[in-house]
């Protein structure tokens, strides 16, 4: 399979056959490419390619607990995909599996190209900021990806301006407020120009104003063509952002529905109960 080809839909048997072709196995989450990124190819590499993302029979066990069971779906290019569901549904684990921070117990995560790992970024619930200045934080992944110092700094400054933090560039990052920290994390992720951006409850510990600021940035990124894949337990946020909804419940994907249709009336009884606020876990 060539790197630039997008994956057509095909059955498991064909996918298995792909594994035995040269380079085929690299598209599997089970065999992540552990080598660090060299060269500059990672940054802004191409305009398309890693989507659609196809997930088949994804399972994740932690000890005896089945966190995810037989989850399968396809993510296409387009508006934000919001993963919602009650606590413990497996939302965060699903994001970490897709981003290769965890290895699935079974199942496949198939990206359009083998370079997929380099064209995605992830934002965590609590932003992990380095003990450096705001600017140095934003430039760090760019330097890691092989950009020269001057170029990385310039790009980082531009991204900071996008999120309104250019005035704080020289401040220690960890002295920022919670909202500013999450905006910095967004700018840092955006600087990588990822095709897909995963966000794990980015507003869970923010006040309404900071939440709104983060949502605006997320919408701007989506408008810029970045595929947003985000978990939230905030239904209002899901309504504001989602183009489609993936509803998870107890480790199963119960539905993947366009947002308008989901909020008008979900197909599954569990999702209906969740929307009424009656499904707590």
């Amino acid at each position, binding site marked *: 399979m060539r790197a630039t080809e997008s994956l057509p839909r095909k059955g498991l048997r064909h996918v298995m056959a792909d594994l035995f072709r040269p380079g085929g196995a690299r598209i599997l989450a089970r065999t992540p490419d*552990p*080598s*660090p*990124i060299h060269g500059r190819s*990672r940054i802004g590499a191409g305009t398309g390619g890693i989507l659609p993302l196809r997930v088949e029979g994804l399972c994740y066990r932690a000890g005896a607990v089945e966190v995810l069971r037989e989850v399968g779906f396809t993510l296409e290019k387009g508006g934000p995909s919001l993963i919602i569901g009650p606590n413990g549904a497996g939302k965060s684990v699903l994001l*970490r599996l897709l*981003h290769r*921070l965890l290895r699935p117990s079974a199942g496949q995560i198939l990206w359009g190209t083998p370079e997929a*790992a*380099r064209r995605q*970024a*992830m934002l*965590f619930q609590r932003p*992990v900021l*380095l*003990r*450096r*200045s705001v600017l140095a934080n934003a430039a*760090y*992944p760019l330097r*890691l*990806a092989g950009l020269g110092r001057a170029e990385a700094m310039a790009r980082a400054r531009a991204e900071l301006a996008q999120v309104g933090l250019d005035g704080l560039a020289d*401040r*220690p*990052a*960890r*002295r920022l407020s919670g909202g500013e920290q999450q905006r910095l994390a967004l700018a840092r992720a955006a600087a990588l120009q990822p095709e897909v951006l995963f966000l794990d409850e980015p507003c869970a510990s923010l006040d309404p104003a900071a939440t709104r600021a983060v949502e605006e940035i997320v919408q701007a990124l989506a408008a810029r063509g970045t595929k947003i894949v985000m978990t939230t337990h905030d239904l209002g946020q899901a309504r504001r952002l989602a183009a489609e909804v993936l509803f998870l419940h107890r480790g199963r994907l119960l539905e993947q529905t366009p947002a308008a249709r989901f909020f008008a009336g979900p197909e599954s009884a569990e999702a209906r109960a969740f929307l009424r606020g009656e499904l707590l876990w």
Partner: protein
Amino acid sequence: MTASDTNCQSGRVQDLASAFATALGLVATADPAVMRILLLSLRVSLTALALAALVGLPLGALLAVARFPGRQAVLVALNALMGLPPVVAGLLIYLLLSRAGPLGPLGLLFTPTAMVIAQAVLIAPILAALSRQVLEGLWEEYAEQLRSFGAGPWRAVPTLLWDGRFALMTVLLAGFGRAAAEVGAVMIVGGNIEGFTRVMTTAIALETSKGDLPLALALGLLLMAIVLAVNALAQGLREAAAERAG
């Protein structure tokens, strides 16, 4: 030692105050013999610290991020090496550097270089073990994010060393304190040769065995003052830098 003749009359002085006076006298007159000993002490211990840091800190960082079979055993061994007796470290280096030893032809035995090597060997495990401890907490916080950025363990090492720099300053001070305070290793590989390999601790040991307790005590006070000054300087630098970097 000439200082003993000028600064202290015969017999013992029980009073700590006279030791203080002697110490002040040594500083005030800038006794050349004492200053030489003091400077050699600083030179040897700081060079040993730099060498040990070059090996110990990256090793500690690597142990903080790496997961491999037998890691626990390595950590236990490393922690145990923190208790390595200076005389044993000195003895090992002595065996290596003595005429018949594998590094004998270098002719390093009873030179300041040999003392640097012995102290570096003594404190490298301390730096590695303590920095591993300090950086492991940082790695727990950073691990997911760095992996998300595509940084493997090797790339994480310099990041952790830089971001943990303030905590590592304390680790370095612990190593420096250990090096400056030990007497066994430098005595064995240095030989306490006056004007060449005599340092503060070996001078103190010598004056004590000669019975010149006030001078020994005065040298001890001087050594403690130097260690205090180094610590204060490091603390000041750390505060100033932390203020800027958060």
